[in-house]
């Protein structure tokens, strides 16, 4: 018996240490909770309905919600700084309108894409400038942006405009085949690319770290000499850009431009961000969580379409309940930290 024989206490200590090394950092907890919810919902659906967990059904979640992922990425950036953007749904509608009407007027597709993306970004830039330099609440400025974009839609046309441009239709009909006979659409690739760029930008660049710093405490960020103005305006430009890109994906998805497209989509985007674990007070959250939030919302819809007996308004109720649960959990979490 040597003196070095580890006692039971020592063993327990090293075991918890090892466990602690294996557990992910605290900031991943909310995202893990969302991921668990997503997997749990898929599991419940798989038990209840036949074919629910077939890979194509899961891929369809991405296909049907690609535009919402792009939208949620932009919204995440804004919410991370402690702001909010209510205009995104209307900007999506405006983008479909601009795309459809300029295509009808005979513009080449590439020019249309540039024009749409530019108009969304400029609108975001204007809102960001007003929010930062006139110190008006983001809520009210983006509300005005929401009215403005919807009004512009109606100014372009009250009717729905079909999109017949060959480039757009081929993009809409195009599929990318995966091994095993499954497929995704090009829009999914765009969404995943945006997600990857946003995740890289938020964690690897100076701009991204400033976004988190501003959300944590704008005053401290200012005292540290960070570029608060550029960052605060920047996130609204990003959100405007993402909204118009989502609008392009949506116009491809619907193959039409219509002023009543995407009514209330800003709420879906906010709900996805909150369910994805981003703190509404700003400063904490991951874009990956928001994408998972979108998938959770999509799963609710899949549940309802698989069931057949449930009415579609259960979607809204379920989203509301999930939103509530996550907001309350957030609240308890932040209170404990404080």
């Amino acid at each position, binding site marked *: 018996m040597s003196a070095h024989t580890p006692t039971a206490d020592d063993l327990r200590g090293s075991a918890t240490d090892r466990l602690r090394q294996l557990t992910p950092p605290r900031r991943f907890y909310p995202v893990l909770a969302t991921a668990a919810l997503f997997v749990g919902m898929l599991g419940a659906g798989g038990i209840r309905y036949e074919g629910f967990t077939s890979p194509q059904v899961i891929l369809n979640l991405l296909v049907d919600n690609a535009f919402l992922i792009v939208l949620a990425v932009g919204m995440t950036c804004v919410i991370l700084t402690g702001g*909010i953007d209510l205009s995104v749904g209307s900007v999506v509608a405006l983008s479909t309108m601009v795309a459809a009407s300029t295509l009808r007027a005979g513009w080449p597709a590439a020019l249309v894409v540039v024009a749409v993306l530019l108009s969304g970004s400029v609108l975001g830039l204007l809102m960001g400038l*007003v929010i930062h*330099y*006139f*110190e*008006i*609440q983001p*809520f*009210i*400025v983006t*509300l*005005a*942006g*929401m*009215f*403005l974009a*919807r*009004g*512009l839609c*109606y*100014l372009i046309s*009250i009717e729905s405009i079909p999109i017949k441009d060959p480039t757009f239709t081929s993009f809409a009909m195009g599929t990318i085949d995966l091994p095993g006979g499954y497929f995704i659409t090009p829009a999914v690739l765009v969404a995943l690319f945006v997600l990857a760029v946003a995740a890289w930008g938020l964690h690897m660049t100076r701009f991204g770290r400033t976004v988190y710093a501003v959300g944590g405490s704008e005053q401290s960020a200012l005292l540290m000499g960070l570029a608060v103005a550029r960052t605060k305006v920047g996130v609204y430009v990003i959100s405007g850009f993402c909204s118009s890109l989502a609008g392009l994906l949506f116009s491809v998805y619907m193959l039409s431009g219509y*002023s009543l497209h995407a009514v209330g989509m800003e*709420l879906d985007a*906010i*709900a996805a961000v*909150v369910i994805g674990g981003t703190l*509404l*007070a700003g400063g904490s959250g991951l874009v990956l969580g928001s994408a998972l939030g979108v998938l959770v919302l999509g799963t609710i819809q899949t549940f309802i379409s698989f069931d057949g007996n449930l*009415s579609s*308004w*259960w*979607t*809204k*109720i379920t*989203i*509301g*309940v999930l*939103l*509530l649960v996550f*907001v*309350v959990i957030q*609240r308890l979490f932040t*209170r404990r930290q404080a």
Partner: protein
Amino acid sequence: MRSALRHPLFWPVLALGILLLVNLVATPSFFSVRVQDGHLYGSLIDILRNGAPTLLIALGMTLVIATRGIDLSVGAIVAIAGAVSCTYLAGAPDESSAGRAIVAMSLAVGVCILLGLWNGFLVAVLGIQPIIATLVLMTAGRGLAMLITDGQIITVNNSLFKKVGAGFVLGLPVAILIALAILLVTAVLTRRTALGMLIEAVGINPEASRLAGVRSRTITWTVYVFIAFCSAVAGLMIASNTSAADANNAGLFIELDAILAVVIGGTSLAGGRFSLTGTFIGAMFIQTLATTIPTIGIPSETNYLFKAIVVILVCLLQSPKARAVLRVRRPAPLLTRGSQA
């Protein structure tokens, strides 16, 4: 003259006046009010009647905003009030009895007050940001209304119920009389008692007012119940006006109109002070704008565009920063120059 310019209601009243003037130029008969079957008719009366629901909700919103809160769920509550009352009425054996209508309306108001208690609980007790707490009901509420009406548009036929939104008393529309009565009671309660000051105190700093002995939690809770009550009555008016409950479209975007009315009326979104008269003028301005746009030959759907311009202008006028930019050329007052030295 300068004191009139400084008066907080100067700009809203001026804007409303200009709008009315535009109408007068576009349609000379705009101000004519005629009597028909003992009822008053005319564009002005229409504006008052159609503006009643917005006015009521804006009234509740004023108090909520004064506590530095916001309520996004009012549109959903409007839909629920219509759904509950119409579903109850339509399910009755004697649909047209007055007693049945009273029970239906009381039931709707009761359900909505419960929803107000819920919103208040989330904000005042759990301490969730108001915009998010009420977003929950905004998202789920319309689904609930659809659930109640089973996704149908429920039409009812009840003369007493019809009166609330479309009836006349003493020649005036009942809807605006109800709205004005509630406005008057609120004004007396907040301006002749300490209640208004307590609400403002909570809006300025809830923690400090709690330490000073104000029951800030109760006050916050109360204003959310009050706005739910206002929304319920507005919902009854809208349902009664069409004799139908449309869970999808009743009160759509009305929360935005109500917030807009409050902001136009000079109540700051930062909380801490409010003006009920301003809200009244704001609500009337929005309704007049909605009437003016088609009158002068612009498609009424572009309404949103004009509302956006109004929101931006009003906010810029209110913003201290924008005022400072406008004032930059004028010499600074002596007092501030002295303190800098």
